[in-house]
Structures are given as structure tokens and as C-alpha cells.
């Protein structure tokens, strides 16, 4: 095993045991890391805000020297890959979505299933990338609704996951 | 809104519960196929025929079997010749369903046969899809109306009939001329119909619902011509810059300029410029392009592309002047290919002199290329300008004030005045002539963008002056659907062109150009006239028509 990760986990966060964490990682309150996810702070630290969900097979890598700051209430669905520079709040990386190196995500973006961004770009708020050809549009839906669903989702995970999984604490 | 209007109509026409009386209306073009049921105001489906070259080979069995075709693994998705799959191989390239020179005899017999085979197989696939995937109706139950272009190759008509009768077993097929059908959607039966499609533009005068076939004229200035011109412009004028290194410019790789790519640019970015620029004689093309560039007010559009060779993202910048001027090629004719304007005026000049005014004041532009935003207004200006300035049309210059499209509005005062003036000279009832609208008095100089674009506004204008001489419904129907809608109208009235019944199908179909005789009511198709080939565009020979003896007029063979 590599050098032990340096974890700073909020007491109100839930980080499952069975996953692969490397480097310096700070996990904010209410954030949930499912088993089988991979968070590698090989360069600078990775800092999660509050209320994020990181599902299995997710890869979050920070290779650069700067810290990778992840805002609040983002969802990283199964198999998504985050290599970007910065991510705002309430973004969704759907299943197998890929945010490439050097990219910044604003707020409330949706990177659709199996879609990817380009390298080194800045996505404005409410960008959605979807479909075979990575089409883009700016959507105008109502996120407030989805926020309440997100909060309930977190609540559920906080209750259910510890029944079946061991969790980690700060090192 | 109470009961929808269409419902009331349905009742009044005694449609049965299954609506079997309603016919299938098909408009089969070289690039798009429109299909639907008669009695409906718009086609149900509008299918594009994008098909790869590779897939085309499949029809000949030249191609390798796709990888899925392996033993038991196979069979799930190896419906090799299904259109979907063919399109899937390379969905960006297509071949037109047919070519105009399909029947040209100079090509070797084998290839012609092959071409026919491909045509038939493609048609069989498309039509099978039309019935079982789109219209979802039993082909055996409904009669079929084909909106046909009068100059489409006879082989196409024969193949259509063959597929419909033999593969699908439809009870009857009637070929009905597209131009006339389109004209009926304006509520009139006299006019000059300009069908600006993909392969060619055909202009056909129709008088009292009689297509004046001898006066039909065509020009290749149409959609395909525009695509070729656009391709040239893109290649020469639009380098691609790399996204990562904007100063690094590349020429568009040939492989990128597929039909689908061009179609995308054409249908999403191009429009006809509202400004006419006068070309001096002998002006170089480059100079002209510079002129275009200088006066252009349209924005540049960046299209992101992927450069395969460089493995890099590129940006194709399409300048505004190309967007507005690519369609200029439709208005600049030469000897081989007359411009739209010239072909229209040529037709007008050839019709009997007392029909000229009714014709030029009842223009109707239809066809896929007519969807190009602002094309019709531009054409109107061009026609007026030609009449006023072009020496060739000096004889017609008196008609300049009468030029009018049937689906344009004319201000009431102007039309009243014009109608009064025209009252003595026009022939048919309901027809009149208009003066030019005040907005574009001077077609020489720039007229501002007047009424424009394909997008029809659902807002409808109230009829404030019900006693107007002109009552046009305006752009209520799309130009590319008008022919189909006409077919639907005629079909819902239980009429159509002469019907060819399945029992009597012998493999041949009536041919416009040979004026084959058809007795409509009995459905008997007599193949007396096998004399002339399909090339007879200005065929002199005409034969009498035996339709229940109702027709008194013109049972004489005449010479032209």
C-alpha cells in the first residue's frame, strides 16, 4: 500500500471503508463516499465541501499542485471521472461522465451519462452536456426541487450505509 | 375552442371508424420521403434518405458482412439491409434515391441494371418502413396517391409501382402531378408552379388545373447545385483553426465535407440575402465575393469539428457572407444551367401571350430548397429586376408590376388598384394582378428584409378587409409539403389522377412525357403508347383520353 492517506473527515460525513483514498483529502460535513470509489490527491489536496455524494467506481484525481476544491451538494454518480480543476455547487456528474483535466465547472451543471467535457475549459452555470455527440445547452429548469430530493438522498444514505458498511474517520 | 375543426370535417366526410377510405399519400423525392394519410393537413412523417456509399454497396452484395454476423452471435442485429443499419454504418454520407439520368442509355447495361436493382431494394425498404414502422397501416387496405414530379425518370415510377403492387400489394396507385397538387393548396387552379427541389428546379404553368406540359422547363439550379457550390466555398474560403492553437489554420479535409455535413450547414445556417448586388459584366468571381463580404451584415458562425489527422479539435468559421451568398448561385445562371429567374421568365415568355400575366401574377414556389429562408422574397426581387433591366426579357417588361407569389400578401389598396387595371386583361376568375408592394419599389437597390424565413408564425392575421380581391392564406403551408398536402386534399375528396389497379399492373406505368392514355374510371391501363422514350420532354405526340367521355376538349393530336 502507498503511504497512508491524510484524511480530515468531518464527524458528520460518511466515508465508507472499502475504497481507495490517497494523499490529503478533506471531507466536509454531510458528504458521503460510497464504497469502491477512488479519490487520489496525488498532487495537491482534494477538498470536499458539504453534502456531496460520491458513488462507487468514481475516480477523482488531483494531479496538479493546486488544491482541488469541490463545492457543496455535488453528485458524482457511478463510474464518473473528475480530473478537473474546480467544481462549484450542485453539479451532477451522471454515470460515467468525465470532466477532463484543467476544466472548471460552474454551478448546477449536468455532465450527462457517458458525456465528457473538453480539456481546459470553463463551463458556465447550468450547462448540460448530453447525448452521443456531447451536445450542449444551457437549461433553465428548477433546481430547488432537486435540492430537496438531494437532501433526502443524503439523509437516506447516512441512515442506511452504516448498517452494511464500515466507515472511516480522520487520520 | 370547441370541437376541433378537423373533427367536424371528418364527420362531414363520413369517414368510417377505421378510416380505410383515406388513402396513403406519398411524395418520394430524391432525398426526402413524405408520407401520410389523405385528409390530414400535414404529412405524418418526413423521412430523410441519408444512406452511406458503403451501405449502397451492400445492396449489391459487394460489402463485407459486418462483424456481428458470426454464427449464433449473429441474428440479433444483422438485418443487413435494413435502412437503419445501413445508415448506421456511416450515417453522414448519403446517396440520392435516384438520379435524373438514371435511364440514360449510354451507361453500360449492367450498371443500369444494378442501379435499378439498388433503387428497387431501397424503395422496398423505405416503403416497408413507411407502412410498418411509420404509418402502421395495412398496405392492402388503402389506395395510394403518389405526388410525382412530371419529369422524374420513368424507371422510378415503375419501381415505385412495382414495389407497391408486388411487395406491398396495395390495391391501386395513382400518379398525380406534384405541381398541380401544390397549386390546389392555394385554392386556385391557375398559376406558375416552381418546384425547387434537390436535383433540379422545374417550372410548370398550369391553367385551369391543366398542366401545360409542353411548356415545362427545368434547370439544375437546385439543392444539389447549392450543396456543390457551398462545398466549393467552404473549401476555398473557410480554413479551420485549431482550438488549442488558433493561429494554426488548416484546409477542410475533403472527407469532412460529406453530404450530411453540407446538408447540416445548408439547412441550419444558410439563407438568401435580402440585398441584391448588381454584378457588372465580366466581374471576376473573387471580386464578386469581395463585394459580398463588404456588404454583409450577417454574423460569422463557428462550427466545432474534429480533425482526424491532427487528432485535434478545430473551429470552422463560416463567415456571414457565405451564409447569405451561397444561394446566390441559384440566381446567377449560365448557358448550361439557367438561373431560377431566367427559367421562370423563359417559361412565361413561351406560354400564349394572354396567359403571361395570369402566370406571372400567380407564382408558387415549392420544394425542399424553397425552405431556404428568404428565398422567395429574393426571387421576387430578382424577377422584377430582370424584367426591368435584362434585355432578354424586354418583351415581358410590361409585366414587372404584375409579379406576385400566390402565398404573398399584397396590401389591399395596391391590389384593388391592380385588380381594376387588370380586370380587362386577365382571364380566369379569381385571378388578378398586383403591383409591387411599396416596400420594394426599387429592386435595383437594397430592399430591406421584408417578410422572411421559413418559420411560420402561428399567429394569424385577422381578415380585416374581407372584400379584398386577393385572399391569400399566406405561408400557412411549408413549401416542401405543399405537393403532399395537395395530394392529401385530393385524396380526401375521393379523387386523384388516373388509378392503376393491382390486377392490371403489367410492370409499366403511364408516362407523362409520352402522354399515355389512361382511362381513369375503369382503371384499365392501356399500354398503347409505348412509342417514345422517356426523354421526350417536349413530346409532340398526344393521344386522346377516354375517360367516360366527359372530356370534350382537345382530343386531337397536334404538333407543337
Amino acid at each position: 500500500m502507498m503511504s497512508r492517506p491524510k484524511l480530515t473527515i468531518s464527524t458528520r460525513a460518511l466515508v465508507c471503508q472499502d475504497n481507495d483514498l490517497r494523499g490529503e483529502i478533506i471531507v466536509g460535513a454531510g458528504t458521503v463516499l460510497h464504497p469502491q470509489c477512488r479519490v487520489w490527491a496525488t498532487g495537491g489536496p482534494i477538498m470536499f465541501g458539504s453534502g456531496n455524494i460520491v458513488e462507487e467506481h468514481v475516480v477523482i484525481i488531483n494531479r496538479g499542485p493546486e488544491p482541488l476544491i469541490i463545492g457543496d451538494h455535488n453528485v458524482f454518480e457511478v463510474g464518473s471521472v473528475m480530473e478537473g480543476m474546480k467544481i462549484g455547487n450542485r453539479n451532477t456528474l451522471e454515470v460515467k461522465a468525465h470532466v477532463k483535466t484543467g476544466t472548471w465547472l460552474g454551478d448546477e451543471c449536468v455532465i450527462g451519462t457517458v458525456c465528457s467535457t473538453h480539456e481546459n475549459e470553463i463551463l458556465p452555470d447550468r450547462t448540460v452536456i448530453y447525448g452521443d455527440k456531447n451536445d450542449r445547452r444551457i437549461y433553465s429548469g428548477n433546481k430547488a426541487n432537486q435540492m430537496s430530493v438531494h437532501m433526502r438522498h443524503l439523509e437516506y444514505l447516512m441512515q442506511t450505509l452504516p448498517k452494511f458498511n464500515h466507515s472511516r474517520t480522520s487520520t | 375552442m370547441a370541437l376541433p375543426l378537423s373533427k367536424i370535417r371528418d364527420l362531414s366526410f363520413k369517414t368510417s371508424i377505421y378510416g380505410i377510405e383515406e388513402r396513403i399519400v406519398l411524395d418520394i423525392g430524391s432525398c426526402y420521403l413524405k408520407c401520410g394519410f389523405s385528409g390530414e393537413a400535414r404529412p405524418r412523417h418526413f423521412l430523410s434518405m441519408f444512406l452511406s456509399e458503403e451501405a449502397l454497396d451492400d445492396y449489391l452484395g459487394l460489402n463485407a458482412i459486418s462483424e456481428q454476423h458470426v454464427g449464433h452471435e449473429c441474428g440479433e442485429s444483422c438485418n443487413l439491409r435494413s435502412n437503419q443499419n445501413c445508415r448506421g454504418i456511416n450515417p453522414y454520407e448519403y446517396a440520392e434515391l435516384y438520379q435524373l439520368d438514371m435511364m440514360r442509355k449510354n451507361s453500360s447495361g449492367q450498371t443500369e441494371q444494378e442501379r435499378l436493382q439498388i433503387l428497387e431494394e431501397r424503395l422496398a425498404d423505405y416503403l416497408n418502413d413507411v407502412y410498418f414502422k411509420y404509418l402502421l397501416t395495412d398496405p392492402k387496405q388503402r389506395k395510394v396517391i403518389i405526388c410525382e414530379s412530371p419529369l422524374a425518370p420513368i424507371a422510378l415510377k415503375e419501381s415505385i409501382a412495382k414495389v407497391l403492387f408486388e411487395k406491398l400489394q396495395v390495391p391501386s396507385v395513382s400518379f398525380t402531378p406534384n405541381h398541380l397538387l401544390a397549386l390546389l393548396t392555394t385554392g386556385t387552379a391557375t398559376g406558375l408552379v416552381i418546384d425547387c427541389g434537390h436535383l433540379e428546379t422545374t417550372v410548370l404553368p398550369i391553367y385551369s388545373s391543366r398542366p401545360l406540359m409542353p411548356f415545362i422547363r427545368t434547370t439544375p439550379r437546385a439543392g444539389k447545385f447549392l450543396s456543390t457550390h457551398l462545398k466549393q466555398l467552404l473549401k476555398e474560403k473557410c480554413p479551420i483553426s485549431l482550438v488549442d492553437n488558433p493561429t494554426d489554420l488548416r484546409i477542410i479535409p475533403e472527407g469532412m465535407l460529406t453530404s450530411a455535413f453540407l446538408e447540416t450547414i445548408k439547412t441550419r445556417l444558410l439563407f438568401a440575402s435580402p440585398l441584391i448586388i448588381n454584378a457588372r459584366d465580366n466581374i471576376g468571381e473573387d471580386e464578386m465575393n469581395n463585394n459580398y463580404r463588404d456588404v454583409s451584415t450577417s454574423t460569422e458562425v463557428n462550427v466545432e469539428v474534429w480533425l482526424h489527422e491532427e487528432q485535434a479539435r478545430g473551429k470552422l468559421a463560416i463567415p456571414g457572407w457565405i451564409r447569405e451568398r451561397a444561394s446566390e448561385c441559384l440566381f446567377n445562371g449560365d448557358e448550361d444551367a439557367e438561373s431560377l429567374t431566367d427559367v421562370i421568365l423563359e417559361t412565361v415568355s413561351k406560354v400564349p401571350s394572354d396567359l403571361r400575366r395570369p402566370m406571372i401574377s400567380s407564382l408558387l414556389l415549392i420544394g425542399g430548397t424553397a425552405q431556404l429562408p428568404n428565398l422567395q422574397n429574393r426571387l421576387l426581387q430578382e424577377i422584377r429586376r430582370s424584367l426591368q433591366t435584362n434585355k432578354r426579357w424586354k418583351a415581358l417588361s410590361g409585366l414587372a408590376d404584375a409579379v406576385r407569389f400566390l402565398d404573398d400578401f399584397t396590401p389591399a389598396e395596391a391590389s384593388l388598384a391592380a385588380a381594376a387595371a387588370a380586370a380587362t386583361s386577365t382571364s380566369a376568375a379569381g385571378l388578378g394582378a398586383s403591383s409591387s408592394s411599396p416596400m420594394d419599389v426599387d429592386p435595383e437597390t437594397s430592399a430591406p428584409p421584408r417578410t422572411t424565413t421559413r418559420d411560420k408564425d402561428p399567429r394569424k392575421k385577422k381578415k380585416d378587409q374581407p372584400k379584398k380581391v386577393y385572399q391569400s392564406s399566406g405561408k400557412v403551408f411549408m413549401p416542401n409539403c405543399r405537393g403532399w398536402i395537395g395530394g392529401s386534399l385530393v385524396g380526401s375528396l375521393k379523387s386523384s389522377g388516373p388509378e392503376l389497379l393491382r390486377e392490371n399492373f403489367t410492370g409499366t406505368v403511364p408516362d407523362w412525357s409520352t402522354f399515355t392514355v389512361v382511362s381513369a374510371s375503369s382503371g384499365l391501363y392501356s399500354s398503347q403508347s409505348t412509342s417514345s422514350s422517356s426523354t421526350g420532354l417536349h413530346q409532340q405526340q398526344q393521344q386522346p383520353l377516354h375517360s367516360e367521355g366527359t372530356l370534350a376538349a382537345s382530343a386531337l393530336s397536334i404538333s407543337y
Partner: protein
Amino acid sequence: MDLPIIHYSKSEYIETDTGNKVSRKSVICGSQNIVLGGKTILQTGSVIRGDLKRTGTGHAVVVSVGRYCFLSQGCVIRPPCKTYKGVFSYYPMKIGDHVIIGEGTIVQAATIGSFVTIGKNCVIGRFAIIKDCCKIEDNTVIPPNTVVPSFSIYKGSPGKLVDELPESIQEIYEARTKDRYAKFIPRAD
């Protein structure tokens, strides 16, 4: 061509009484909530999330997989979730018999019928319903709540009907899954 014989290391796989062969290198969360029908194979790296169970209920089956199924390497079976009447919950998933799920495919469907083949690297969205006798081509995305009717071939993102399966497909898929099971044999050592 015949399917190739797959040899596996005897130490890696656990064979159950009913003939299920489950890799020790697969991740099975909440195994008490998972039912495998028999003669089903779970390959290396596959994940089944039996821990995401419905709120409120006591012991409940979260994921049930039928007979002769083949879950390839790296696929993820994960029950779908939504809020219903204001309550957020995960809901059980049912997979029928003779189902093949390709490598790297992520399934969050509500139901997958019998005689279904899902290709590699597909994503089956939340609460999707795949009926009996279907094929999902490689790299297809079936968006949430989509229904795939019987005898369909879906492809693309979003997955669209591209063709129909032949009427003989049930026999073909049944024979294939059985063949696959028969050819999944321990390495002779």
C-alpha cells in the same frame, strides 16, 4: 463461431449449491438482500449493491437475479432510487433468467426481463424497464424511466430502437447462456 471456453481459477470462484459461480473479487454489499437464481456467474470486479434497500421495510430482497445470468467483469448492479410521496428510497431490482450483462455496464433498472443481452459499457438508467427478449448494443445509454419493449434492439445515447430481434431470439439466447455456463470451467490445476 462457437463461444470460447473461459477458464477460471478455482480459488477465485465460489460455487454455490445451486450452481452459482461468484468471484471472490466481486463486491457484494448487503449479501443477505441478494438472491441469485442458480447457474448464474458473477465475474471479477462486478458490484452488486444489496445494501441500498428500501426504507422502512424489514428484511427484503433488494436485488434478485434469475438463472443462467452472466454478469461480466466490472459491471455494477445497483437498485434505483427516487422520492415517492415525499419519501426518498431505493427500490428493489429484478433481473430475469438468461440475462447477459456486458463488461463495465452499470445497471440501475427497475426490471430486466428474461432473455436479455446487454452489451459492454452500457448504462441502464434508474427505473428503466427492459422487457423480455431484448438486446442493448454496446455503449448504449438507456436513460432513466425508459421502457424497452420486447424484441427490440436499442442503441445510442439516448438509446433508440434500431432494429427488431428475430422471432427465434428466445431459443438463441437460452442456448447461448447455457452454453456460456457450460463453458465457464475451472482451470485444470
